[in-house]
């Protein structure tokens, strides 16, 4: 099968869906020339730097029959638009009694590792998990990116697509034909029997590397990638932990009330899974600080395969 990059897979999903459905439009501060050429300036809008306005415009356009795809570029910039996400997009279908659908995708890049400092190295997806009314995807491979983003564009609800900065150039197999991946279905990226690592985005790959390493020591690691943060595939995660009895959660975001906290909680509050646990679940996350600029500082903050390995060893030793 052909290999394409994560970024390219996202672009393919976008272009194919825009071809498929003439009601799709694209809103971003940048109008990519290739899109303008194919779809025209009417559908590919270069907006002023007004994330708040163009996110709201997407909501109104969606409520008037279009299917907008918004690209915030970095997730950083969505905070200017937060009123439209929190107070409008997440609630509008519900508070109007379901009378109208609002099919919108909000894309953004997340994560650090490129010395862009605190403002431009954020992974705030858990902020949207506590809100009700948004679906959230966080793909870790080109294959997942394309399949999930297509599902997101076809979904009749606001979907936030968080896309890992570190993975933009990462290549993987992607079929030529049209396919989708349903939202809310986790993927077991590697099977194992001794310990489960639930990993997100870039850390899926670090977890796979850690698993490879641990295999040499005779520890069999299962790597589960939720892929969708809301709805979360509780069943797959719990089933894995029931099998292995041990859990490490790896996330590029900080731990506090993060996706990792949710995964720990959904595992421990389930009676059968709780009963199967041989050791306390462990979060391997970024340190709870803003992200610093200098590479040595930044590397110190982020988790990686070595910290995952240390986490696995700690949990294996604990029981």
């Amino acid at each position, binding site marked *: 099968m052909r290999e394409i990059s994560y970024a390219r897979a996202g672009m393919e999903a976008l272009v194919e869906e825009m071809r498929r459905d003439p009601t799709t439009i694209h809103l971003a501060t940048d109008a990519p020339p290739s899109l303008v050429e194919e779809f025209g300036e009417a559908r590919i809008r270069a907006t*002023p730097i007004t994330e*708040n*306005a163009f996110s709201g415009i997407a909501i109104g356009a969606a409520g*008037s029959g*279009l299917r907008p795809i918004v690209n915030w570029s970095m997730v950083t910039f969505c905070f200017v638009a937060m009123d439209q996400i929190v107070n409008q997009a997440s609630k509008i279908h519900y508070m109007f*009694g379901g*009378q109208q659908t609002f099919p919108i995708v909000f894309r953004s890049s997340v994560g650090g590792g490129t010395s862009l400092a605190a403002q431009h190295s954020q992974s705030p997806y858990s902020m949207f998990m506590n809100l009700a009314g948004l679906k959230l995807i966080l793909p870790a491979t080109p294959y997942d990116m394309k399949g999930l983003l297509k599902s997101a564009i076809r979904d*009749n609800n606001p979907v936030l697509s968080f896309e890992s900065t570190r993975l933009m150039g990462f290549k993987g197999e992607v079929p030529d034909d049209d396919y989708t991946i349903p939202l809310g279905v986790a993927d077991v990226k590697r099977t194992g029997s001794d310990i489960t690592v639930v990993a997100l985005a870039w850390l899926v790959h670090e977890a796979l590397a850690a698993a490879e390493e641990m295999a040499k020591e005779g520890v069999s690691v299962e790597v589960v990638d939720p892929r969708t943060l809301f709805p979360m595939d509780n069943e797959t995660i719990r089933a894995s932990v029931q099998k292995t009895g041990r859990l490490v959660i790896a996330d590029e975001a900080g731990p506090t009330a993060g996706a990792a906290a949710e995964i720990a909680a959904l595992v421990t509050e389930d009676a059968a899974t709780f009963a199967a646990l041989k050791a306390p679940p462990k979060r391997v996350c970024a340190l709870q600080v803003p992200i610093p600029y200098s590479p040595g500082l930044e590397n110190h903050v982020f988790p990686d395969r070595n910290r995952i390995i240390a986490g696995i060893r700690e949990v294996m030793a604990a029981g």
Partner: protein
Amino acid sequence: MTASPELQREMLRQMQTIRRFEERASDDYHNGAIYGVVHCYIGEEAVAVGVCSALNKDDQIISNHRGHGHCIAKGADLNRMMAELYGRQDGYCKGKGGSMHIADFSIGMLGANGIVGGGLSIVTGAGLAAQLEGKGRVAVCFFGDGASNAGSFHESLNIAARWKLPMLYVCEHNSWAANTSSRMTHARDDVASRAAGYGIPGVVVDGNDVLAVYEAATDAVARARAGEGPTLIECKTYRWRAHTERPGAADPRPLEEIAAWMAKDPIQHLVDDLKQQQGQYSDAEFQALDDAVMSAVAAAVAFAEASPFPAPEAALDDVFAD
């Protein structure tokens, strides 16, 4: 364009309906049948009615927290409105929204909104959809003097102007945002003065003169349908009641100011106009109109009372669409 006699009578009916509907809503809020918060539009009826009279059914509007007038002027069903205020199953939002969130997308009413300034960009998206559709639809934003200072005003007007969207931005300048006077918050009191910065017309109108509002709106709608872009219309008006109906809430507005504006009642204004223009309009005719309006409001209350409360578990529905 001036309104035909029939249209003028229809405007009067709508304004009186808004007033009577809200008088009843206020009463029912105070006696506990309506919950949460109610913001009354009484005194400002000419704005919603004058503007919406210039629109077609498939044109779209968006409202703010003070939404009953906009709903009624756009043709919303009184029964379903009252049922929503009563928190009932047959309300516009199945009891999920209440006063601040009534919407009826089937008549182009994109919703009331609890966030000051929140609707400005949303309705601009409706304007974008109208432009792409190319059938001459227009989209209208109603917002307050308070909202005119929010960033979303600037962002939305600049975009609409640049993209020449078919839109009207209608500022209801009632000189107060909750308990804060616009004198405290506006560098220049005339919001319309900001239009020049976007290269679009900025029009100031007597917001208590429904015919003047109608004329300004008609011109702006023609401009929008012709592809010439948005217009900012500032309607000077006043709310008669406190910011919300919450009992005992402070209202720092000077009594003389309130009295002066009540003397400029938009409904009386149109009645006087009708009497003058068409000597035959009589108090009896107005009385008959009011009787009809009162029955419609009473029927809405009866409808609301007859509608069941939603089942508690319905709280779990409508989070996501299929």
